[in-house]
């Protein structure tokens, strides 16, 4: 029923009994389970894909694996996915794809598939399940060691999946593969993962791999099964058996559809039972392509000629020539012909320098064909080795970069280290598996399986980096493609060298060769060869570019795993949070905390709500959930001494029951954090920190205690989440607190500012109540166990109901504190601000030493023109300056012609003040305290706004309001 004219009548690892439907660019095709999109296309006789990215040239399928440079797909669906090589997408029924010109599109539709990750520890990790990797895993697993075997293909076997006559231990190679996999799967400590690509190798044998789990199962995928899984594997020993990729050849018209890698042709014939042509020419520099030749002949495909660059026939070439195949030595395909597909090749003779000899036009022979299979040699897949800074060596005989030495705890085996024959791969794999198991503590011996390929010894490789064009100079060879995906040619490389570039890293970036989705898998070494041809010397002297993860593209969804949406980042809430939600709070994220920003009443916008909340705090009573402030208990006989060293002001003699505002600085004298600290008893303090700084401050204290002052008897404990803190603020706050805490004498005389009292509330809840204020108003902070937090909040809210007690959020808190000139560390400071810069000279002790003190006599911190924190009042009384606005002197030209504008500083905080009836700002301005009264310019976009410099304390500078 199916139109698969190029499907061979037998063979292949496909299930012919099942027909699958596929749509490529709207064209309906069929295939079978076991097919990739590429093999199904070729079975239908279609090899063309979307045209090339920049030059719009016709392009076709080139490869059969991840190295494919042309055939990129967008797999269409509810959430489409782009940039998938057609050679790696398994066929499922109903698949619809579109071929891409090198650029994909991230589908904006939300991806509802599940992605997850898994962490695994293993004794031996083997990457690659070809002959070497299978032998390694088999040998290692026999020791009882934990073994993980990863392979990117749909089934284990590697190159053996594409072979025809190879044998292992005297049986067909794939029988051996089946036996080994069965043995591994029955071993209790072995794990075999197919469709799993190790894409990154990191220090201490940490390998990250992505497993494709459901796409090949068809639609719908099993419920609840993750589509992809990222494996994070820590291995005692790693065996890299990642194989090798064949290189194409660089000649005129080498991008024409119908030019395929010889090994890919072999794979399509044997693995997928597809003959992608009826009359082939093979162009090679080495013996490996002769396996393709014999397989083509065995499949009934006519081989018009084998064009071998080597001047004399190798034994293998002679053997194949002896079967009647025409072999043309000392020659190369110099050009292809055809419209949308190869219909012939031009063959020219090469001299010993690789140049076209004699009368080029007369000597060129034309051979008709519908496919050209090319082999320019093999490049070991050294990515994982090189990502770990494993060295490479240029092997002149193999014409390949091969691993030089090993990375600690790793081995490279098989064709990944340049051992291209089957027997050698099996021996090296076994040896590597045994060595890995032994090194991981599992002694074992194993005898390598004996592998035989159809061919005997491989002959030499001729290095042919650049087949000369028939006309012109290399600078003119715009159809000699080096990187098909980037549309870059020999002419582009010459332009780079003409611009003076010599290093391959520079040429890579100038031309973009090797930077596409395929990361130069088929182009990188050829680019090095072409560069060597341009500059003279060998590829080894040019060297390679750096290999970086990921080996193949990995979707962000897979990397994100389950850590998206609600699970993207932890969300911290206080015990009062449900009340905030129920009362319509709008939230902002501070650190990881969700804090109410404001509590709008019917129809209010943020400005109206903040104005109302501010009025309540300044004229009546308001309340705020301050539980997110960091809290650290510092205990021990030396707690006071320790705090004296880390805070700029003294704490050792602070009386029990008192509170003190403290600033801590880095050794360079810059503000690190601040907060109000309580002395709970002789050996116990409670520090508060900024909401976002809590964890960092605890780390900071621990660092000094552990590394510099271990002799101090001090212990630090985070108690942030143990306490709920409620600020009750405003002239009427005393009444509310008195109602809730009737046992407490709340008079200003009995309970003065900057003290705290322990009491039991009317509700029976033990509480610690502080007289501290972050607004300048009379205010209390009520601290209770978090378990009672919500209840006490509700008690206060009820107790203040007749006074219209008003909950407020961080926005009003900011306005209130800014009106008083209280800086927020991290907003008004940025790691370059000293306490003196912030106008807090008074908090810096002159009588004791502390961290940062020495820096205040450094020349830089003593400068008079340092940026000071000051207030700014827009003269128009209307403009609310955006935070970050730059401050400049009047009459400073702001034009492109006059160039850089000298900045005096910038706005750090900006609000509308309900109390002042105007907008205002805090700013860091050079020599700001000496400019009070001056008018400066705040440049808001294109508009200069006049601002009056004021002291930072704009509201109640005398401090008359704090006692109510």
């Amino acid at each position, binding site marked *: 029923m199916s139109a698969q004219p190029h499907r061979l009548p037998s063979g292949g690892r496909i299930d012919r009994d099942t027909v699958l439907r596929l749509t490529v660019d709207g064209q309906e095709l069929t295939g079978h389970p076991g097919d990739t999109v590429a093999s199904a296309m070729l079975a239908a006789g279609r090899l063309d894909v979307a045209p090339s990215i920049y030059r719009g040239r016709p392009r076709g399928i080139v490869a059969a694996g991840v190295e494919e440079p042309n055939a990129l797909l967008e797999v269409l669906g509810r959430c489409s996915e782009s940039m998938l090589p057609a050679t790696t997408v398994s066929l499922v029924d109903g698949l619809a794809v579109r071929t891409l010109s090198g650029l994909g599109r991230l589908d904006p539709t939300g991806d509802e598939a599940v992605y997850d990750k898994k962490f695994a520890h293993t004794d031996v990790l083997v990457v690659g399940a070809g002959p070497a990797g299978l032998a390694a895993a088999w040998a290692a697993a026999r020791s009882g060691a934990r073994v993980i075997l990863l392979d990117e293909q749909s089934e284990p076997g590697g190159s053996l999946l594409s072979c025809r006559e190879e044998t292992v231990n005297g049986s067909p190679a794939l029988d051996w593969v089946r036996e080994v996999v069965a043995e591994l799967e029955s071993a209790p400590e072995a794990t075999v993962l197919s469709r799993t690509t190790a894409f990154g190798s*990191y*220090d*201490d*044998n*940490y390998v990250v791999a992505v497993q494709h789990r459901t796409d090949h199962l068809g639609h719908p995928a099993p419920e609840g099964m993750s589509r992809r899984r990222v494996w994070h594997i*820590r291995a005692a020993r790693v065996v890299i058996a990642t194989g090798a990729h064949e290189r194409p050849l660089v000649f005129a018209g080498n991008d024409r559809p119908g030019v395929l890698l010889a090994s890919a042709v072999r794979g399509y014939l044997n693995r997928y039972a597809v003959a992608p042509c009826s009359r082939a020419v093979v162009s090679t520099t080495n013996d490996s392509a002769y396996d393709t030749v014999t397989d083509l002949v065995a499949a009934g495909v006519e081989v018009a000629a084998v064009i071998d660059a080597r001047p004399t026939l190798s034994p293998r070439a002679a053997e194949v020539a002896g079967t009647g195949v025409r072999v043309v030595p000392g020659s190369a395909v110099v050009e292809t012909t055809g419209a949308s597909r190869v219909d012939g090749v031009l063959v020219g003779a090469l001299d010993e320098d690789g140049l076209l000899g004699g009368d080029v036009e007369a000597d060129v022979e034309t051979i008709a064909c519908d496919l050209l299979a090319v082999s320019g040699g093999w490049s070991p897949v050294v990515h994982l080795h090189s990502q770990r*800074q494993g060295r490479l060596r240029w092997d002149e005989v193999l014409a390949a970069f091969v691993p030089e030495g090993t990375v*600690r705890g790793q081995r490279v085996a098989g064709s990944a280290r340049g051992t291209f024959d089957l027997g050698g791969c099996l021996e090296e794999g076994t040896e590597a598996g045994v060595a890995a198991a032994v090194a991981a503590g599992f002694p074992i011996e194993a005898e390598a399986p004996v592998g035989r390929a159809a061919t005997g010894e491989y002959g030499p490789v001729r290095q042919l980096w650049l087949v000369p064009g028939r006309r012109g100079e290399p600078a003119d060879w715009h159809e000699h493609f080096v990187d098909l995906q980037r549309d870059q040619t020999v002419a582009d490389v010459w332009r780079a060298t003409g611009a003076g570039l010599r290093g391959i890293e520079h040429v890579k970036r100038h031309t973009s060769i090797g930077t596409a989705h395929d990361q130069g898998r088929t182009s990188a070494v050829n680019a090095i060869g072409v560069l060597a041809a341009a500059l003279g010397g060998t590829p080894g002297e040019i060297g390679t570019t750096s290999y970086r993860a990921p080996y193949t593209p990995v979707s962000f969804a897979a990397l994100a795993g389950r850590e998206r949406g609600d699970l993207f980042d932890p969300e911290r809430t206080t015990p009062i949070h449900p009340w905030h939600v129920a009362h319509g709070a709008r939230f902002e994220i501070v650190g990881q905390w969700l804090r109410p920003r404001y509590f709008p009443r019917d129809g209010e916008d943020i400005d109206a709500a903040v104005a109302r909340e501010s009025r309540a705090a300044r004229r009546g009573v308001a309340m705020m959930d301050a539980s997110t402030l960091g809290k650290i208990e510092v205990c021990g006989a030396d707690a006071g001494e320790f705090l004296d060293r880390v805070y700029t002001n003294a704490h050792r003699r602070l009386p029990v029951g008192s509170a003190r505002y403290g600033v801590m600085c880095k*050794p*360079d004298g810059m503000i690190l954090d601040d907060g109000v600290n309580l002395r709970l008893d002789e050996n116990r303090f409670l520090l508060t920190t900024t909401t976002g700084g809590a964890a960092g401050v605890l*780390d900071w204290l*621990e*660092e*000094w205690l*552990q*590394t*510099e002052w*271990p002799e101090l008897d001090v212990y630090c404990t985070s108690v942030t989440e143990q306490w709920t803190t409620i600020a009750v603020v405003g002239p009427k706050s005393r009444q509310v607190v008195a109602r809730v805490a009737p046992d407490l004498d709340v008079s200003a005389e009995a309970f003065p500012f900057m003290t705290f009292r322990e009491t039991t509330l009317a509700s029976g809840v033990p509480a610690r109540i502080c007289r501290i204020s972050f607004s300048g108003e009379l205010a209390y902070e009520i601290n209770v166990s978090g378990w009672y937090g919500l209840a006490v909040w509700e008690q206060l809210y009820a107790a203040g109901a007749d006074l219209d007690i008003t909950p407020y959020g961080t926005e009003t808190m900011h306005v209130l504190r800014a009106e008083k000139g209280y800086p927020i560390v991290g907003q008004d400071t940025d790691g370059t601000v000293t306490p003196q810069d912030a106008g807090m000279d008074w908090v810096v002790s002159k009588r004791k*030493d502390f961290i940062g*003190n*020495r*820096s205040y*006599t*450094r*020349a830089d911190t003593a400068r008079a023109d340092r940026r000071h924190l000051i207030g700014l009042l827009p003269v128009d009384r209307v403009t609310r300056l955006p935070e970050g606005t730059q401050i400049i002197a009047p009459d400073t030209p702001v034009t492109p012609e006059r160039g850089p504008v000298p900045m005096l500083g910038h706005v750090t905080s900006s609000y509308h003040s309900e109390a002042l009836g105007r907008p205002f700002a805090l700013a860091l301005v050079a020599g700001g305290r000496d400019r009070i009264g001056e008018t400066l310019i705040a440049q808001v976009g294109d508009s200069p706004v006049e601002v009056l410099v004021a002291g930072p304390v704009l509201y109640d500078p005398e401090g008359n309001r704090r006692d109510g």
Partner: protein
Amino acid sequence: MLLLDCPWCGPRDETEYHYGGQAHVRYPQVPADLTDQEWAEYLFFRDNPEGPFAERWVHSTGCRRWFNVMRDTTSYRVLAVYRPTDPRPEGSR
């Protein structure tokens, strides 16, 4: 991702730790006795060797203890792990 052997907890992934810069840079006993030049060198100057380097790490998400690591900055190989009270191993800067 380094595998660091916390002296108290054993081998754990690098993500459990925070880096603390060069080890054995003592906070001066009496900073006031230092010249500006000497203080600036304490504040801002650190070694940046190619090869073995003694550095501080803290097991942030584990025991929260600081310790020292001798690490080769070229190979990232951990040559030694030792407690702050232990002497610096031979052959390092």
